[in-house]
């Protein structure tokens, strides 16, 4: 312990040597990434040495990696050295009342039907101590603790439960997986950690939402969820409020581990800033999400509703290692204006009698391009593995594109793989039918689209589903005609 402290102190002191922080009051590291920056981040967060080493390994891998080239869009030039990799929890200007908030933002909240208190919270307005969610959150915290559930920030987990973090971090997404995962390993800011003990059914949906404000997680967050034998958890990521952001890189890593008989449901509603009509600005969303069905009869399901980001590059995947394990991927990806989405999944069947199901619904409008990319792999030992893939594309207008790239690789003759794909347009007849019942074009398209994505939305927890529907309607506003 003493030694560790000493080391930390040394590292902390060494900051000055390298001269990249002249003023300790500074809350932002200058742009650029090198070993020193990584040491600085690690020291700032008082991390144990193994974690620093791990970050450095990630950094080495990052240096060796090339940008991926196979996606169905031209990779933008991302200047990794132009990004600042550490900022103290942003001392955002505390707004005193809603009057100070961008009216356009408020209008969007209004449309989403977000209650006033939450609007304040989302907009970063100082929230009264009486804010309901606060007490709700604390009540649940107590309840979760009683059950032995750990739900905290990643940094906290590193401090409080280092053995779990050390054991599982990087066990599903290795530090060298791809350039963005390596970058995240080197420079991750914070994230979420969940552990559900054996046989425990988590009584509530766990959501980053509860922590979002306290934490203000950065662009390189990590999530690690471990469901021990026979446990169950449903996790919700993201909130549907639009963020105002410049053209920024977002490179998260999410790892899910399901032990024997455990089930993890992971739902995302992603609505990062998509850039403007002409494709200026917006988030580059390069995310690595992967789960492993480690034990027998375990289950993982990914559900995602992707409406935001200038570029979405993500393939939530599952390694079906345990025999009789099951995995699902339900996705809705909406692109409009000049947005680009290349998203899908990988189902890696390793165990016997493993089952996977893929339902992907792409919606493209404007000049956007929307690609589904999926791999179903069946290993030699995966006897009687089964996959069903359904992959539908809906086009609004004729200047957008929908593409599907389904790959199948099977090394076992007993596998059953089914694939269905459709591409359709919203029929004028359908819109007219709804018009004739008093529904205008915009609402008509929203209705039709919501019908189209129903199979996916139904997978979301109730409140999330309602929000996702509203979000779809909003994001397609003005895409008609």
């Amino acid at each position: 312990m003493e030694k560790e402290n000493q080391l930390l102190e040394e590292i902390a002191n060494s900051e000055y040597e390298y001269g990249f922080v002249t003023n300790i009051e500074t809350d932002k590291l200058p742009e650029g990434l090198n070993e020193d920056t990584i040491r600085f981040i690690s020291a700032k967060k008082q991390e144990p040495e193994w974690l620093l080493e791990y970050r450095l390994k990630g950094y080495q891998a990052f240096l060796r990696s090339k940008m991926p080239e196979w996606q169905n869009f031209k990779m933008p030039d991302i200047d990794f050295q132009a990004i600042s990799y550490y900022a103290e929890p942003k001392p955002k200007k505390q707004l005193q009342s809603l009057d100070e908030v961008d009216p356009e933002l408020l209008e969007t909240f209004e449309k989403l039907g977000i209650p006033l208190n939450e609007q304040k919270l989302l907009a970063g307005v100082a929230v009264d101590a009486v804010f309901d969610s606060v007490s709700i959150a604390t009540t649940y915290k107590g309840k979760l603790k009683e059950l032995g559930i750990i739900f905290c920030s990643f940094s906290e987990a590193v401090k409080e439960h280092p053995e779990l973090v050390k054991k599982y971090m990087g066990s599903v997404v290795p530090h060298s997986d791809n350039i963005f995962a390596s970058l995240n390993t080197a420079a991750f800011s914070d994230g979420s950690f969940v552990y559900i003990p054996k046989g425990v059914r988590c009584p509530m949906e766990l959501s980053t939402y509860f922590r979002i404000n306290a934490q203000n997680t950065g662009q390189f967050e990590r999530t690690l969820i471990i469901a021990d034998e026979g446990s169950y958890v449903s996790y919700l990521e993201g909130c549907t409020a639009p963020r105002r952001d410049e053209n920024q890189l977002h490179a998260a890593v999410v790892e899910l581990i399901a032990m024997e008989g455990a089930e993890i449901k992971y739902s995302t509603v992603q609505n990062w800033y998509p850039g403007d009509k002409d494709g200026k600005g917006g988030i580059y969303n390069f995310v690595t999400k992967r789960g492993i069905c480690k034990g027998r009869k375990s289950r993982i399901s990914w559900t995602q509703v992707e409406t935001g980001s200038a570029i979405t590059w993500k393939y939530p995947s599952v390694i079906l290692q345990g025999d009789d394990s099951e995995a699902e991927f339900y996705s809705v990806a909406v692109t409009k204006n000049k947005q680009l989405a290349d998203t899908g999944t990988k189902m890696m069947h390793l165990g016997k009698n493993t089952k996977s199901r893929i339902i992907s619904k792409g919606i493209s409008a404007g000049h956007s391009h929307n690609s589904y990319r999926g791999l179903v792999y069946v290993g030699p030992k995966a006897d009687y593995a089964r996959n069903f893939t359904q992959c539908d594309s809906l086009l609004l207008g004729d200047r957008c594109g929908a593409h599907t790239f389904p790959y199948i690789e099977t090394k076992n003759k007993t596998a059953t793989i089914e694939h269905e794909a459709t591409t359709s347009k919203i029929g004028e007849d359908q819109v007219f039918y709804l018009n004739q019942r008093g529904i205008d074009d915009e609402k008509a398209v929203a209705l039709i689209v919501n019908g189209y994505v129903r199979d996916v939305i139904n997978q979301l927890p109730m409140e999330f589903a309602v929000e996702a529907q509203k979000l779809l309607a909003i994001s397609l506003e003005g895409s008609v005609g």
Partner: protein
Amino acid sequence: MLSIKNLQAQVEDKQILKGLNLTINPGEVHAIMGPNGSGKSSLASVLAGRDAYEVTGGEVEFYGKDLLELSPEDRAREGLFLAFQYPVEIPGVSNINFLKTAMNEIRAYKGLEPLDAKSFLKLSKEKQQLVEFDAKLVNRCLNEGFSGGEKKRNEIFQLAMLEPRLAILDETDSGLDIDALRIVANGVNALRSKDNAFVVITHYQRLLDYIVPDFVHVLFDGKIIKSGTKVLALELEEKGYDWLKESVHAPIV
């Protein structure tokens, strides 16, 4: 309520309606008959505002408003309802949610609050009974996988729910079995009042036995070439259209 004067319309440069006149008053039921391709559905489409049709002449007034100036949804909100000859399927959209949206849009146009869930469900139950519409179909997706007859009956259920001032029924009878025909007709009769009107497009006298029209018109080649009372329908049933066609083509002296 509705006055159509010298209405002319084309679709893809093909003239379909060639100077059509028709006046409808509240409380009336008009039957429109005529050979295939004569322009009956086209008339319904033009009135409802389908985009593909271009109005090239004439005028249509609906309750003092220039109907042709209104968007299709505003025409619906003003109380014009079209029961489609071929209702479309909209996968994944629940029938009842769709109807609730429709109803609340129409109410909003009239400056009314949306109907609360309870009253809406109550109303829906009542109307289901009125037109004997299967509760299972109410909760299914909009016409998705419905049989031909079920689709037609769904149109009538919607009609009952939305209570329009003017309803145009485009061959609602075709595809209905004998019992369904009677049920639908009874429903329509129950909905008739001194304040609303119906235009019933049909090929068969059978329907008019149940829904007794005040007027019968024959549409041919984009024009109404003959109007009469319910007796005209019986005459058509007996003689077909040829005798009328001849009178059209014969030079008028």
